[in-house]
C-alpha cells in the first residue's frame, strides 16, 4: 500500500537525501545505489513515513544515515532480522535492507537464507564489491577463488558464492541484479521490487575503487548487458504451472559470468504468499490491527487480555 507523499502540489518534491555528509571514497559504487534508491522513492511519490531503511555494518551500513527516512544502522549481519521485525509488526511499512556482500552472505548468511523461506516482504539490496572495504580490503564471499585484489597477501583461497543462485535456491520470490552505474535500470528494479508483495534480493555490482583493482568500473562496463534487451525475456511467474520453466531459465542465466554478465530481473514469482498474508490466515485481524497498531490497555490503563478465558484449558473448576 503506497500513499501519496506529503507536501503541497506544485512545490518541490520531497528530498529523500538529507544533508549529512557522505564519507564514502570518491568513485565508490555506493553513491549510485543511493541515487537509485532516492529516485525510485521519488518516482513512486512515496510518503517518507511509510518507508524505512535497515542496514548492517560496513560502508553499506552507513546508507540509512544519508536518506531522509527513518533508518536503523544495525549489527554486522543482522539487518534482515531487524527488517523482518519491523515488517511483521507493521506490514504497512515498506522496508529496505542495505547490506554488503560480507554482511549478508558471510556473517549474516543464515538470515539471508532464512528470509527466503519467510518471504516477509523486505527488499534486500546487496552491495557487491567482492571486498570488505571498511576493514581494508579482505576477501568477501563473492570474490572468486584464486583472484588477488590489491590488499590480499595471496590469491583468494576460498570459492565464491553466487548471490543470485543462492537467493533463488533460498526461495526469494523476486531476484534481480543491477549495476551501480546503471542508475536508471537499478532504480526501476528497486521500484518494481517495492511493488512486489514478497521479499526481494537485488544484487548490485559495484566497484570499490580503493581495494578492488580487478573488478573495476571499466571491467564491469565492458561486460554487463541488460536481460530486458532480449524482448523474449520474461521472468515473471503469475501461475504456478509456469514456475518450473521460469525458475530453471532464471537459474541457468544466473550462472553466466565472465565476458558477459547479465543484469536485470532473473525471477519474479507472484504466486508465493507473503508471510504477512500467511499470518493473516492465523492471527485474527492481523492486517487490520498488526502488532504496532494495537491497543494493549483499556482507558484506565489496565490489561485487556482475559487470562482465564485465553488459557481456558488451564482452568480447574
Amino acid at each position, binding site marked *: 500500500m503506497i500513499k501519496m507523499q506529503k507536501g503541497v502540489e506544485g512545490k518541490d518534491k520531497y528530498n529523500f537525501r538529507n544533508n549529512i555528509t557522505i564519507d564514502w571514497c570518491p568513485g565508490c559504487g555506493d553513491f549510485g545505489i543511493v541515487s537509485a534508491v532516492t529516485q525510485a522513492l521519488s518516482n513512486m511519490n512515496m510518503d517518507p513515513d511509510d518507508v524505512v531503511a535497515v542496514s548492517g555494518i560496513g560502508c553499506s551500513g552507513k546508507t540509512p544515515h544519508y536518506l531522509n527516512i*527513518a533508518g536503523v544502522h544495525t549489527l554486522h549481519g543482522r539487518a534482515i532480522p531487524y527488517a523482518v521485525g519491523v515488517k*511483521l509488526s*507493521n506490514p504497512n511499512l515498506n522496508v529496505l535492507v542495505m547490506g554488503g556482500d560480507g554482511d549478508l552472505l558471510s556473517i549474516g548468511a*543464515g538470515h539471508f*537464507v532464512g528470509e527466503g523461506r519467510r518471504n516477509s516482504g523486505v527488499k534486500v539490496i546487496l552491495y557487491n564489491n567482492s571486498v570488505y572495504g571498511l576493514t581494508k580490503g579482505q576477501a568477501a564471499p563473492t570474490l572468486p577463488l584464486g583472484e588477488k585484489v590489491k590488499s590480499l597477501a595471496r590469491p583468494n583461497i576460498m570459492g565464491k558464492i553466487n548471490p543470485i543462485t543462492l537467493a533463488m535456491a533460498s526461495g526469494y520470490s523476486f531476484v534481480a541484479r543491477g549495476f551501480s552505474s546503471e542508475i536508471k535500470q537499478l532504480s526501476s528494479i528497486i521500484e518494481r521490487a517495492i511493488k512486489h508483495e514478497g521479499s526481494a534480493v537485488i544484487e548490485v555490482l559495484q566497484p570499490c575503487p580503493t581495494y578492488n583493482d580487478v573488478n573495476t568500473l571499466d571491467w564491469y562496463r565492458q561486460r554487463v548487458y541488460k536481460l530486458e534487451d532480449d524482448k523474449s525475456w520474461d521472468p515473471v511467474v503469475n501461475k504456478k504451472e509456469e514456475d518450473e520453466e521460469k525458475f530453471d531459465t532464471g537459474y541457468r542465466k544466473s550462472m553466466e559470468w565472465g565476458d558477459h554478465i547479465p543484469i536485470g530481473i532473473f525471477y519474479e514469482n507472484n504466486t508465493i504468499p507473503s508471510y504477512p498474508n500467511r499470518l493473516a490466515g492465523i492471527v485474527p485481524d492481523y492486517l487490520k*490491527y498488526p502488532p504496532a497498531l494495537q491497543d494493549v490497555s483499556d482507558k484506565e490503563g489496565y490489561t485487556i487480555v*482475559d*487470562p482465564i478465558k485465553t*488459557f481456558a484449558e488451564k482452568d480447574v473448576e
Partner: protein
Amino acid sequence: MQETDINLLVGGPQGGGIDSAANMISMAFSLAGYNIYGIREFHSNIKGRHSYIHFRIMHERPKSLKYPVDIMVALDPDTLFEHMFDVAKGSKVVYDSAFNTFNLKNARMITSDTMIRIQDELAERNLTFDVKGVLDYFKSAGIDVIAIPFDKLINENVHDGPANRYYNTLGAGTTLALLGLDEDHADDGIKFAFKKKPKVIESNIKVIKAAYDYVKSSPIKVATLPTYPAMPRMLLTGNDATALGKLMGGLRFQTYYPITPASDESTLLESHEEMEFLKNADDVVKKAGLVVVQCEDELSAINMANGAALTGTRSATATSGPGFSLMAEGIGYAGMTEIPVVITFYQRGGPSTGLPTRNGQADLLFALNTGHGEFPKMVISSGDMEECIYDGMKSLNYAQRYQMPVIHLIDKTLANTMDLVPEIDVKKVKIVKYNENTNHENFKRYSLDTENGISPYGVFGKDIFWMTGDEHDELGHVTEDSAMRDKMMEKRMQKLVTADSEIPLEDKAVLYGDENADVTYVTWGSQKSLLIDTIDELKKQGISANLLYLRMFEPFPSEYVAKVLKNSHLIIDVESNMTGQAAKVIRMNTGINIENFILKYNGRHMTLDEVLKSTKNIMEKKTALEVLQEGS
C-alpha cells in the same frame, strides 16, 4: 486430626505417559479441593529414558517438596533402581508385578555411570543386581511394596488398544485408591485430563475402577481422605505463568528459536495467537492477535524482537543459556540504541550444553555482564507462579519506561513446577507506555533535554529518525565527538538511577520472617517458597530464621540489602550454582562477605529435608559449605 500432607513420586519412561498420570492425579486432587505442587524431572531424550514427577498434596497450598516420599509409583523398573533411597520406613511402593523378575543389566536406558552407582549401592548391602534385590532392601527397611498385576487387570477390564496404553492410568488409579481419595474424584480427574475425548475417558474410567476394586479386595487398609469444596484455580507451570503475564502485559510480538526449557513458553503463546479479551476492552479498543515467529537462530530472535520494538510494538524473546550467549550482541545493541525489549531467560544446567533439561542458577553474573562495553540493562528474577505472571507484565513495563533491554531470569525448576494459582488480578499491574514523542517536525530521538535520561521514544511509521550502534548524536547519527560521547553515556546510564528511584523496594528485595532472627537465608529464584517453608519448619523446632529474597539485580537494592545483612547473625546463601553468584553480587555492591553456603549444582531441585539438615550442620559449625546431592 493430622493434616493431609502427601509426598508422591511417579516415575516411568519418557514418552510413557507419566505426564498424563501426573495430570490425572493433580486434577483428581484439585477437584477434591486439595492443592498440589509438583516438579518434573526428565532426560534430554524423546522416548525411553527415566523421568519422574515429584509432588506434594495438601489442603493448604504447598510451597516445597521433600524426601522421603510417602508413596512411589514405578511405571518402569528403572524407577525402582533410581529412587531406592527416596523412600523410607512407612513409605509405599507401587509397581507392576511383571518387574519382579527384571534384572538390572537389562535396564538399557540407565546410563553407565548411574548403573555403576546403583550396583555399588546394591553390592554394599549384599543385594542382588535385580528388582528382587531392591525389593529385599525395601522390605528390610520397613517399606510397603505393593505389586499390581498390570496386564491382567487391564486385559480383564478394557479391550480398546494394547494394555501398555493404560499403564499410566492404572498407576495413577492405584495411587489414588491407596491414598484414600474417593473414586468419583478419580473419575473427575480422568474426565478433566482427557477433555473432549469421550471414548478415551470411557476406557480410562474402566481402568480406574479396576484399580479401586483391586485395592478394595486386597488386605491393604485405606482410610478415606476428606474432600473440600474446590475453588476455581489455574494449573500453571512457570512457562505458562510467564507466557500469561507477558500477554497480559501487552506482548504482541514474540520471537524464539527452539531450546529447552524456554520454548514451552513460546509454543504455548503460538497456540494462543488468538486471545480472549476482557469485557472492559470495548469496541473502541484496537485489538487483534499476537505474532509469534520461530526464527532461524537466536541471533535472529533477539534482533527481530529489537526490530519489532521500533514500530512501537511490545516485543520479547525467550531463551536459555546457549541461546542467550548468542544474543549478547543484540542485547548490547538494544542497550546502546535504547530499544525496549524483554529477554525471558530460562536458566538450565550449564556450562555449554551442560544439563539441558536440568536446573541451574549459574547465569546471574552472565546476565549482569552480558555484552561488551557499558550500557544500561535491567535484570530481574522470579521465584514463584505469581511472580512469573506479574513480573512478566512488569518486565514489559520496565522496558517501555526505561527504553532498555530487560532480562527476566527464571530457572528450570520454576519453569517446570506445576502449581494451582487461585486468583489472577488483572488490575494488579498497570500498563506503562513509553514516553511519547510530541514533536514530529524536528524529532530528536536521543534528546539530551532530559533530567532522568529518558528521551521521547520514536516509532517507525510516525517519526523520521536514525539509530546506530555507533556512538550517536541527538538525531541518531554517528558521532565520535568526545563531548557528545560523554553526554550520551551519562544520559543512558542515568536511566538506571531513575529506575532505581521509581521502582518500589518490594519489587527488588523482600525480607520474609522476623526482622531479628538467628539465621538469615539469602536466595533468589525457585528456592523462594522452599525457604519460606524452611523458616516455618525451623520455627516449630524453636529456631528463628528469616529470608532475604532478591528479585532485582540491576538496579540492585544495595542500601536495603546492606541494612538487613548488617543486622543479621548467621547468614547462609542458598543457590543452585557452584560459586554463590548472588553472594558475589552482594559483596560487589555492599562490601558484605557472606561466608556460609548451601549450594546445589547437580541439576535437581532442592528439597526441604536437605536444606534443614544442611542448616543444622552450618549452625553447629560442622561446615560452612553444604553441597546438596538429592535427586535422581
